């Protein structure tokens, strides 16, 4: 490997960034799908949907942590998806970089908002 890894034969891939992100997108998708089903079951099995019942569900620390973990999975998933779309459709490197940075800032802002909602009191 070492002696022919030069010039046109240089191996330019192999860090597995693509595979890692592809797999992460699938794993986060499964996490979100499971959470969605649990939330829907909670929603439809509550006989009387009121503020008390809804707020009580979100008052448990474990549920806050689980919800936050799902939000982080969502933001990671969305980052990979939006990045893929930008790589496919936005060819000028400068514009793509600006949009990718904007995407990251957008998602970090959303993460802060999500944390504030969950741990307000």
């Amino acid at each position: 490997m070492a002696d022919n890894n030069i010039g046109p034969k240089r191996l330019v891939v192999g860090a597995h960034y693509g595979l890692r992100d592809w797999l992460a997108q699938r794993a986060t998708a499964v996490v979100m799908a499971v959470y969605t089903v649990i939330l829907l079951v909670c929603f439809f099995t509550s006989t009387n949907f009121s503020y008390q019942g809804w707020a009580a569900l979100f008052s448990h620390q474990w549920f806050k942590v689980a919800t936050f973990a799902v939000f982080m999975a969502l933001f990671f998933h969305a980052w990979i998806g939006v990045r893929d779309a930008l790589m496919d459709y936005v060819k000028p490197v400068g514009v793509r970089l600006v949009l990718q940075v904007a995407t990251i800032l957008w998602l970090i802002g959303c993460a802060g908002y999500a944390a504030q909602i969950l741990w307000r009191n």
Partner: protein
Amino acid sequence: MSEAAKPPRPQFRNIHLTQIAGYRMPLAAIVSIMHRISGLFLFLMLPFVLFLLDSSLLSEGTFDYLKGFTSGWFVKLVILALSWAYLHHFCAGIRHLIMDNHIGLDKDSARKSSATVLVVSITLMVLVALKLFGAF
């Protein structure tokens, strides 16, 4: 052998947004592009969804305010669009996960599963619409 003597290699590029109208779109392609559109829409609407969650949890007062806020037809339409996007992205995503396991990759199965995605997601969206606009 010189590089220049070889015939030019074919280039397979992604379909650009501006070219979509010129392509024949089989069902699977429609499901695929709608997967992207719904995902991008959900991404852009994230702050709005967080605002809804915020209002629903902050206090009983904001919960009641939210009930009023979401009773207008325009907000209901936005929520319906969000529901469609989530349902489509969910169903098409499960199809993706199944196909990632090398199940249903042939042309006929792929067409059938894409039709299933559309039927299931649109049926559920109609149910959400009926519920939103007070049919039951």
